């Protein structure tokens, strides 16, 4: 029996998404009014139906095509890094999180020297604090410290 892989799952998720949008479009948003013409669900419902059909074709095709996709644990590390920044920002704020992320990333993942870490940190701080914070005037979230202070 053919193994069910990510390449098969992706078109199936598209089909499910299409079905959800089509059902909501037809039942909650409305498709057509004899007085006003197309209703808010008209256009997305049509597209959702197109997505369901093409998604099904892609799903069938996915069993025939060669599986070239290779997933590397390192790639998931980049995702974890991004999600880690998101989570830590709520606790210690965005700027300290970024500083911590760069130090941890370069030291633990890249095994970089402190000289390199300081250079990359200086560039990142210039972009974050200099360009976005000072020049563009962005107020960054301070996490739980905002409430304590």
């Amino acid at each position: 029996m053919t193994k069910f892989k990510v390449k098969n799952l992706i078109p199936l998720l598209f089909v499910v998404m299409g079905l959800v949008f089509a059902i909501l479009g037809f039942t909650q948003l409305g498709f057509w009014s004899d007085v006003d013409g197309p209703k808010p669900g008209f256009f997305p419902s049509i597209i959702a139906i197109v997505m369901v059909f093409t998604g099904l074709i892609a799903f069938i095709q996915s069993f025939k095509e060669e599986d070239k996709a290779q997933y590397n644990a390192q790639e998931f590390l980049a995702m974890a890094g991004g999600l880690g920044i998101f989570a830590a920002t709520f606790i210690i704020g965005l700027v300290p999180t970024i500083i911590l992320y760069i130090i941890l990333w370069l030291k633990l993942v890249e095994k970089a020297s402190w000289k390199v870490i300081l250079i990359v940190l200086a560039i990142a701080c210039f972009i974050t604090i200099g360009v976005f914070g000072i020049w563009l005037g962005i107020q960054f979230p301070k996490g739980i410290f905002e409430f304590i202070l």
Partner: protein
Amino acid sequence: MSNFEMLLRGFSVVFTPANIGASILGAILGLIVGAMPGIGSLAGVALLLPLTYKFNPTTAIIMLGALYYSNMYGGSFSAILLNIPGDSPAVMTAVDGYPMAKKKKRPGQALFTANMASCIGGTIGMIILTFAGPALANIGLKFGPSEMTALLLVAMTSISWLVGENPIKGIVATAFGILLASMGMDTLSGSPRYDFGSMHLLGGIPFTPFVIGSVGFAQVINLMNERYVQTEMIDAKLSIRGSLPTKREFLRLIPPSIRSGILGTFVGVLPGAGATTGAFMGYAIQKNFKSDEPLGTGAVEGIAACEAANNAAAAGSFAPLLALGIPGSGTGAVLLGGLMLWGLNPGPLLFQNEPDFAWGLISSLFLSNAITLLIAIAVIPFLTKILAVPTKYMIPIITVVCVVGSYSTTYSMFGVLVMLLSGIVSYFIQKNNYSTAPMLLSFVLAPLLESNMRKAFIISGGSLKIFFTRPISLMFMLIFFTMLLIPLVRSILGKKKEEKTA
């Protein structure tokens, strides 16, 4: 006023310290982004989008336009010195550029040839844009909702058809982008839809974090595999004087540059074709013409043909973007999204309602072309050092720009969440051969398509006839259905062929 007079008026808009500064900054960043293998113009424009919020719309688009355009120059640097194209339009440049640099030991001349050809091709593209842009807008003025609907359908289908190997996957990606764009508010009635009870989704999926994520953060994830790729840099000390081509070489690069400049511009105007297709076609056409040396062995003509074509295509792609509001590529879609965020509506009325903006942008391309050429020549001695920056140190910096950029455009961590999720989703779909360009294009164009389609149906009282009784919309609908049917016919014919051979 004639187009030439309007162009001069555009120059009067461009020649302010802020606009010249934006052009120089865009050119420098574009060269860096283009030269760094693995980043590319799409990610570059997406990552810089939040920075432009500080500027007025004209200055902002001048910077992004300069970045997009100069990226075509930058892509050739790594193609010539590393044999790795900085961006896809420079793929063909490596075919002759690297042999010229390595075997003939003339890396400087190869870089100079690429720069000169880029400048010539780009200038031709801009001259054609000066005349074709307003002409296209005049045609666009005749378009009603039915014509716009049909044209948008062609634009969306053509990009899903041209990008990637499988048109079905292209259509799925297009539909995905449209459905994501439909979340939030209904374009005509303003009532909420597909918000799934979330207050954040009431305003829809924010454009900038979505683009930064699906292009920038997805690229960060992909770069993780390229961190330890060993590249063989050309071992030579480069200087500007030592890079000058001979008179004979200079004369050799002109004819292919002119030919590819004209061809590339028209390729750039087509939706979905873009600079990469332009470069491939420019090189293919050059094979039919005489070259002093065979192509592929380090011929000046080979470098000139593809570099002129990709720059001309980049300039040409501004014609449908400004005149019809239809981008030809993913980068064009991001530029269009930026224009909409700044309150401008590219389309047939842009040249009438916002002449300073439209002509300012076209004039700025001429300025960017000259500035980029000068900077591209000036950086030749430093290129080996710039290209030696390891990818592994770029990853945390790009991640930080993605996070801070998405936060700054929404003032909310919801923007960061959208960026991360769209990056992860794009990574998975790209891994499985779904292109993100159709998704981005449809995300930007969906509101325009929906409002035009609904208006057309209101006018016709719900009849589909409106799309088939008016000549222009009929023509576009025929193209649309042909594009839809070709993959099906091709698949049936392929199966029949297989049965016959079996």
